[in-house]
C-alpha cells in the first residue's frame, strides 16, 4: 500500500476534534520525524501560523525535526532507572543514536527503551523484551480494594471480562435515572481527585453541569461540554494509571461516560502520555468494544444520552499533566499552563465547561456508581474516605502498585507489604507525590498515607508515587537528578520556575553558587521561597520541596557538598 500523502493525512484529521497532536503523530509515524514540509502542510491544513506550530513542536521532547527521529531509541534515565543501570545502558546504545528520556513510568520494571511505537524493557542490549504492565500482587493485607478489586481477573481488559465483574452495571443504572442521583452518590462517597490535587469529584462534576454562559444576565447553561481524562502520568515514580488502563480500560471508559452523563458532556478525551504507546492500542480497542455494544455513541441504551471518547497521545512533556497545559496541548496551542481562575469547570477545552479527572479518579467513580457511596467511604481508615494507589519503587524488595486505604501507615506499606529494604540496608529517605513532595526521612517516615498527615511534614501525597532510597545512595545526587528533571520539564512561562529550577540544579550539581554554606543556603532558600510563593503552576511550587527537605533531613550531606564545591 502506498504511504499516505501529506494531503491524505491532513484531510483525515482536519475535521476531527483536537486534531493537531494526532496529525503530527501521523506524520511522525510515516516519516519518523517532522520535516519542514510536514509542518508547512499541517500549518496550512489546520490554519496554524507556521512560527507558532514550529515553536509548539519544539516544546515536546519526543517530536523530532530530523531523522532518525523516533526511530532512534530513547532510554529511560529516571531516578529509579539510574539505579538499574539506565545511564550505562544509554552510553552503550549511543552508537545506535540513543538519547535519554525522563522517567517513562515503568519504575517497577527494568529500564524501558522506547523506539517508534514499541517499548522494550531490559538492562542488557540483546536481552530486551516487550511485556504487559506488571499486575499488582494480591493485596498483602487482605484488605478490600476499589480499583484493583477485579484487575487481576483473567480477561478483565475485555468488555466481556469487565462485565463479568459487574462492569457497566453502575453506568446502566445511572442512565436510567436522573443525573442528580449520580452526582449525589459521587459527592457522598467523598471521592476526590486522585491525580494529586484532591478536589472533590462530585463538586467538580456538578460545577460543570451547572456552568452558565458567561454573558451577563444569561442564565442558560454553557456548552458544549467535555470530559478529559488526564492520563499524562508524567510524574517520576508514578505508574499506577498505566496498570489501570492496561488491565482495566473499561473502568476508565465507564468513569468517563458517567462523568459525561452527570455533567452533561457529549465528548471525552483521554490525554495519554507518549511513553505508553501500547496503552493507546488497548484503549482504542476497548472504545471500539464499548461502541459496538452500544455503551458509547449516540442515544446510548435508548437514554437519549450520547457520548464519544477519543484518545489523544501527548508527545513528551511533563507539564501537560497540569490541567491548563493539558487543555492547551489538546487544543493545539503552546502548552503553557493557564492562569486560574477561571478554572476548567467553566473555561476548559475550547473555553467551554470541562471535567478534567485523573485515570484513577474515573476508575474509582465507576466502582462507586456500582457499589455505592457508603461502601466507598468505608474503605478508608477512620474518617478518611476511600483508597489510593501507591506506586512504590526504588530500593525496596517488592516494588509495584499497591492499593491502600487512606490513612494507612507508610511504614507498614514499606516493611510489611513490600518487603522492606534490601538485606543489610536501611531506608534513608523516600520521595512523596512522585518527586513533587520532596523527601521524607527519619522520624517523618511514621506518617500515614493521607494528605493531612503527609502535609503536616511539609510534603504531600499527591498522585501517590513513592521512591525509596536506602543508605547506599548519595542524597545530593538523588536531589540533583530530581531537580534536573524539573528544570528539563519547566515550561518556561513563569520566571521563578524557569530560572529557579535551573539555578537549583546548578547548585545541587556544584556547578555554580556560593562556596560557603551560609551563602549557599541563603540563595537556595530564597529561590525556593520565591518559587513556592509566586510560580504560575504546581511544578514551580513543588520543585523546591526537594531542596527544602534535603536541607532539613541531610544538613551534613549538604555541608559536605558545598565544602567539596568550594575546594
Amino acid at each position: 500500500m502506498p504511504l499516505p500523502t501529506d494531503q491524505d493525512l491532513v484531510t483525515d484529521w482536519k475535521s476531527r476534534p483536537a486534531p493537531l497532536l494526532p496529525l503530527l503523530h501521523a506524520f511522525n509515524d510515516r516519516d519518523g520525524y517532522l520535516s519542514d514540509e510536514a509542518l508547512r502542510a499541517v500549518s496550512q491544513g489546520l490554519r496554524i501560523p507556521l512560527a507558532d506550530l514550529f515553536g509548539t513542536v519544539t516544546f515536546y521532547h519526543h517530536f523530532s525535526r530530523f531523522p532518525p527521529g523516533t526511530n532512534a531509541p530513547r532510554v529511560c534515565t529516571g531516578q529509579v532507572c539510574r539505579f538499574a543501570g539506565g545511564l550505562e545502558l544509554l552510553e552503550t546504545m549511543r552508537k545506535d543514536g540513543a538519547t535519554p528520556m525522563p522517567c517513562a513510568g515503568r519504575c517497577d520494571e527494568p529500564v524501558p527503551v522506547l523506539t517508534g511505537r514499541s517499548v522494550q524493557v531490559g538492562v542488557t542490549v540483546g536481552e530486551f523484551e516487550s511485556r504487559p504492565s506488571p499486575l499488582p500482587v494480591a493485596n498483602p493485607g487482605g484488605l478490600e480494594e476499589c480499583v484493583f478489586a477485579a484487575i487481576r481477573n483473567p480477561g478483565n481488559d475485555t468488555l466481556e471480562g469487565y462485565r463479568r465483574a459487574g462492569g457497566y452495571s453502575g453506568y446502566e443504572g445511572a442512565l436510567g435515572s436522573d443525573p442528580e442521583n449520580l452526582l449525589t452518590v459521587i459527592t457522598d462517597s467523598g471521592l476526590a481527585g486522585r491525580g494529586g490535587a484532591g478536589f472533590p469529584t462530585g463538586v467538580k462534576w456538578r460545577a460543570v453541569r451547572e456552568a452558565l454562559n458567561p454573558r451577563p444576565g444569561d442564565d442558560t447553561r454553557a456548552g458544549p461540554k467535555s470530559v478529559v481524562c488526564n492520563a499524562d502520568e508524567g510524574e517520576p515514580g508514578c505508574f499506577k494509571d498505566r496498570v489501570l488502563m492496561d488491565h482495566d480500560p473499561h473502568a476508565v471508559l465507564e468513569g468517563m461516560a458517567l462523568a459525561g452523563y452527570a455533567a452533561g458532556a457529549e465528548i471525552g478525551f483521554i490525554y495519554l502520555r507518549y511513553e505508553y504507546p501500547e496503552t493507546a492500542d488497548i484503549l482504542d480497542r476497548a472504545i471500539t468494544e464499548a461502541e459496538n455494544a452500544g455503551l458509547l455513541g449516540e442515544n446510548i441504551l435508548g437514554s437519549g444520552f450520547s457520548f464519544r471518547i477519543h484518545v489523544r497521545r501527548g508527545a513528551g512533556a511533563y507539564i501537560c499533566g497540569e490541567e491548563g497545559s493539558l487543555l492547551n496541548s489538546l487544543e493545539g496551542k503552546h502548552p503553557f499552563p493557564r492562569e486560574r481562575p477561571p478554572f476548567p469547570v467553566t473555561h476548559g477545552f475550547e473555553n467551554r465547561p470541562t471535567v478534567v479527572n485523573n485515570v484513577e479518579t474515573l476508575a474509582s467513580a465507576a466502582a462507586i456508581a456500582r457499589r455505592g457511596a457508603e461502601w466507598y467511604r468505608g474503605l478508608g481508615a477512620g474518617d478518611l474516605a476511600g483508597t489510593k494507589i501507591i506506586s512504590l519503587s526504588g530500593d525496596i524488595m517488592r516494588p509495584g502498585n499497591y492499593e491502600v486505604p487512606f490513612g494507612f501507615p507508610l511504614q507498614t506499606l514499606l516493611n510489611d507489604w513490600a518487603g522492606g529494604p534490601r538485606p543489610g540496608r536501611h531506608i534513608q529517605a523516600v520521595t512523596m507525590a512522585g518527586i513533587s513532595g520532596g523527601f521524607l526521612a527519619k522520624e517523618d517516615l511514621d506518617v500515614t498515607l493521607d494528605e493531612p498527615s503527609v502535609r503536616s511534614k511539609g510534603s504531600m501525597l499527591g498522585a501517590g508515587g513513592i521512591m525509596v532510597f536506602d543508605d547506599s545512595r548519595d542524597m545530593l545526587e538523588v536531589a540533583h537528578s530530581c531537580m534536573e528533571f524539573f528544570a528539563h520539564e519547566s515550561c518556561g512561562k513563569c520566571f521563578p520556575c524557569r530560572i529557579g529550577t535551573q539555578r537549583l540544579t546548578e547548585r545541587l550539581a556544584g556547578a555554580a553558587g556560593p562556596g560557603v554554606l551560609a551563602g549557599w543556603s541563603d540563595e537556595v532558600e530564597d529561590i525556593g521561597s520565591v518559587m513556592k510563593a509566586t510560580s504560575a503552576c504546581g511544578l514551580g511550587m513543588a520543585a523546591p520541596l526537594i531542596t527544602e527537605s534535603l536541607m532539613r533531613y541531610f544538613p551534613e550531606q549538604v555541608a559536605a557538598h558545598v565544602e567539596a564545591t568550594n575546594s
Partner: protein
Amino acid sequence: MSDPSSETTVGSIEVDGKNLNFTAGETILEVTRRHGAVSGEPCKIPTLCYDERLDPFGGCRMCVVELEGSHNPVASCARAAEDGMVIRSSTEAVEKHRKTLLEMVCSENRQVDVDPLSGYASQELKELADRYDARSGRFAGKKSGKSREDDPNPFILRDYDQCISCYRCVRVCAEQEGDYAISVKGRGFDTQITVEFDGHLKDSACTFCGQCVQTCPTGALADRKALRHTEVPGEIEKTRTICTYCGVGCSVDILTKGDSMVGVQPAMDGPANHGALCVKGQFAYDFVQHDERLKTPMIRGEDGELHPTSWDVALDKAAQGFLDARDKHGRHSVYAVASGRAPHEAGYTTQKFIRSGFWSNHIDNCSRA
C-alpha cells in the same frame, strides 16, 4: 485613562486600604493603575511581562500581590477583580519576592544597562533593577538565550543574550500585528525566541513593523537604526508628531539629540495607533537628514539641469504646464491619481482641483488598482 467614576462600575476592591471601584472584566492591576493615574499617585506594582495592549500573561510574576484568603500571592495582571477583594500590593514579603525575582532575572543576562535608543520599553528592567537594588550578583549561573551571528536585516537587532523570556515580542506580533512571525522554541531555561525554522527575520512572516522592538523591556530586541546614533552627544528629546506616510495618522515621538534626528518611537497613547506603527513609520526616516534631500523647489532650465527656485516661480511654472497641455490637447488630457496614503481631505481636494479646475472627470485613487 478615564475617570473611574464615569465608568459603569460593578463593584469595588480594597487595595492598600483604599476602596477602588472596577468595571466588568478589569484585572487588579488595571484597576490599580487606572485609579493611580487619576489620583496622581501612580500605581507602584512593578511589571516586566506586562504591556497594557496585550492579553494578560502572568509570566514574570513581578506583579504578585497579597490577596486576603489566598494562600499564595496572586498575579495582579491576570486576576480579575472581584467585589470585596482585599489586597496588599507591597508587603515586605511581596517586595522580597520581587527583589529575588529581579536578582534571578539579572543573573541570566549579560548586562542590565542598555542604551535608551534601543527601544521604547528598553529601560524597564534597568529601572526595576535600580529600584530594587537587584544588581547583587546573586544566583550566578548559566546565561540564557542565544543569538544568530548572521542576521542581515537593517532594522531589528536581536541580542538574545539579553532576553528574559517575557514573550512580549511574541504576543505583540500575534495580538497587535496579527503577523505571528515570532515564536517560542524549546522550553524552560532553554527557551529561545525565534522565527519559523530558526531562520532569519527577513525570510519569516515579519513585516519589520518594529512592535517587538518597542515592547522589549531589556533591549534584547533593539532599533538598529537608532543605535547608530548612540555616540551622538546630548540628551534624547522626544517631540510628538504625526507620521506623514499615510492617512491613518499614527502618533509618533521623534527622538532627537541636539539638531540630529536619532530615531522614531510610536506613541503608546496615540489615538489612531495605540503604539502601533508600520515599517515605514518606524524605520524609514533617513530622508529627513539625507544629504541629497530636496529642500527647495527645482526647475529644469534650458540647459537641461535642475536649478533651485522659489515656490511662487515653481507653482506658476507647473500651472502653466497644465494649462498648455489642456489648451493643446483638451480638458481630458489632464487627470489625477490621488495617493492612497493621503487622508480623505487631500483626496477630496484633488478631485475638486481636477473637476472644477480643468472640467475633467478623470480622477482615480491608487488604492483602486
